[in-house]
């Protein structure tokens, strides 16, 4: 299916899910079924026990993204969905990057790591493992530089995001609605 991607831009979405078996599977199944362009996805515990937090980025035009959010909301175990793309957010991602080095290039790499305020967490005779945390652009630029050395192995977590400012009563999992029958 060819899509006109000229109006596409990337949205960052945060979803709060019930922490139960199979819930993530439902969410991923939905993305595949509805053909959403998911680029990154990260899921883990939230501040509320029993509630996990999913951050993902989806590329599309406004209507596609609106659909993605609405369809996600329809899943019974999804508690809340928020599009944080246009809100002030902090966004962080972590990468572990194994760089091949020799005696000559090791200092250069260490300098770059220093400049980026990243850390070296593993050393061997021919490689260093760099741990870097930051937003996506910052990581991209560090990785770009390190790839000259070259990079032999890399893992990225994908971004997680949190809106800036006051902690509002988010209603993510706290307001459990009891329907008396």
């Amino acid at each position, binding site marked *: 299916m060819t899509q006109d991607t000229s109006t596409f831009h990337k949205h960052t979405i945060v979803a709060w899910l019930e922490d139960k078996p199979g819930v993530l599977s439902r969410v991923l199944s939905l993305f595949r079924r509805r053909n959403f362009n998911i680029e990154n996805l990260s899921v883990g515990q939230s501040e509320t026990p029993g509630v996990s937090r999913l951050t993902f980025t989806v590329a599309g035009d406004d209507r596609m993204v609106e*659909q993605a959010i609405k369809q996600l909301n329809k899943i019974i175990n999804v508690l809340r969905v928020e599009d944080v793309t246009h809100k002030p957010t902090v966004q962080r991602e972590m990468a572990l990057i194994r760089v091949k080095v020799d005696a000559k290039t090791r200092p250069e790499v260490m300098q770059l790591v220093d400049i980026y305020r990243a850390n070296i967490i593993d050393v061997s005779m021919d490689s260093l493992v760099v741990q870097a945390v930051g937003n996506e652009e910052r990581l991209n630029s560090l990785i770009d530089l390190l790839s000259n050395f070259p990079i032999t192995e890399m893992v990225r977590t994908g971004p997680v995001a949190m809106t800036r400012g006051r902690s509002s009563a988010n209603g993510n999992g706290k307001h459990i609605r009891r329907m*008396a029958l």
Partner: protein
Amino acid sequence: MERPGGREVEGLFLTPFPTQEKTMKRTGAQIVWEVLTREGIDTVFGIPGGAILPVYDAMPAYPVRHILARHEQGAGHMADGYARVTGDVGVVLATSGPAATNLVTPLATAMMDSVPVVAITGQVPTSLLGNDAFQETDVTGVTMGVTKHNYLVTDINDLAQILREAFYIARTGRPGPVLVDICKDVLNDETEFIFPEEVQLPGYQPYMGLDEAAIEAAAELINNAHRPLIIAGHGVQMAGAENELRQLAEKAHIPVTMTLLGLGDIPETHPLSLGMCGMHGEARANKAIQACDVLIGIGMRFDDRVTGKLEAFAPNAKVIHIEFDPAEINKNVPADVAVLGDAKEALQALLPKIKPAEHRNWMAQIDEWNRESQELDILNAEVEELIPPYVMRQLWHVTQGNTIVVTDVGQHQMWEAQYFLHDRPRQLLTSGGLGTMGYALPAAIGAHYAAPDQPVWAVIGDGSMQMTLQELGVVMQERVPVKIAIINNGFLGMVRQWQELFYNKNYAGTPIANPDYVLLAQAYGIPARRVTDKADVVAVLEEAHHHDGPFLIDFQVKEEVNVYPMVAPGEAIDNLLRRRIVQGPSGLQPAW
């Protein structure tokens, strides 16, 4: 919907039970029935098997009736037909493995048409899960995309709560099918049964309230419209909003066209009804959509069969979308005014703000289009052969429009929609969203149990009949008084039509040989007749309609007849393929 002694709470109907209930020890299998009966279920459809045997063993102690199907697909469609007539949940039981996978088609059918069905399947014991055990399938994985929600029960202490939730999810919000897969050791296990008072679903918000500001904006648009038009869909029936719809139409003289699943929202005999719109809808309805300046979509989702080419759909109109499911708004057609809410509530809020109006020129234009269409209507032409539109129209006359009609899928389905004039909701049962061949016979059986004192006619193409004719066994065993009209043309008709129109008459795989349906019916102990002559149609329909018990009619109709008008795929809805009618020696004749 009346349920004796019941009370309505947030859309649920509960039969009264003594409030001081001693808790009691029950097996998992018994808990299934304890919850089902409290949820108001007295009829279930299914086929027993190893994993679900405990449920069947516990059944006779409870006030429920079980209808044994012949294929789980049939059982699923029976539950669907039952649900469409009552408006409440239909229940299907099946065992594990192949039985559960046989439910996929009826679950998908119910999902696409928003029908409340609860499917309960047996599963291998918890110790064998994931082991490729005998008759094990990952049912919850397989049905994830075709159910509103599903559950796997591995602990008996979750069972009552899950079943309660399943019913709640199936019947509230936008209804849909829910599957509950229960491990066999859970069914055999025992615990204290406590009927859950609450349903805790923090992520489920079935009711979004009514958007008052949008109602104002909608009223403004409608009051200033010169050529307003309503498209009414299934949502009007689900909300029970047919009165409000008619009041709106009559107050401001707004013509109403209906989707396939909306037929009956307003009586088709009403002067403001334009009949069905869309791919095989009436020309006047499609032309009206293209010419209108305010389009009010109520309880419909702008499906592709209705809109044709989206870029060319309703080019001159501001769109008001009154819709219950937020995900449907702006999904296909951008709404100028989106009214998120239940159709009945929305229309009730809207009505007082609508000014009476007449729109005489608009009505005259639509009447003109209707007059043009009459010349091309095959029923107004000289036709000696037996053709399906004639059968449909005579069925309407003979039943006086006072019957439940269940159709299968294909040409006959379209002709029934066009020529039988539906005048009330929940009258026409048809697989619209999924287009499932084989739907009609089992759904008609389910419909009978939902409304035992109403006649039920099943209109089925020969191709569709061969898909689920094993359910004639149910008609035989239970003496289900359904009337079966087979529209028999020896082809997979709708596919043949496409091959004729778009594939150069390359009838690959479409000619289909049929058994002698009269002999077959007799083998099942069902009285039957064959009709080959136009002159015999009415008499046989009368005989069948007044016969006490099941009856089958094999209508052997002219083979190569097409459904018109037609909007070819990817075309705008006013780009219609019309029937060719020519002036013959004795009057207007179709050019076959």
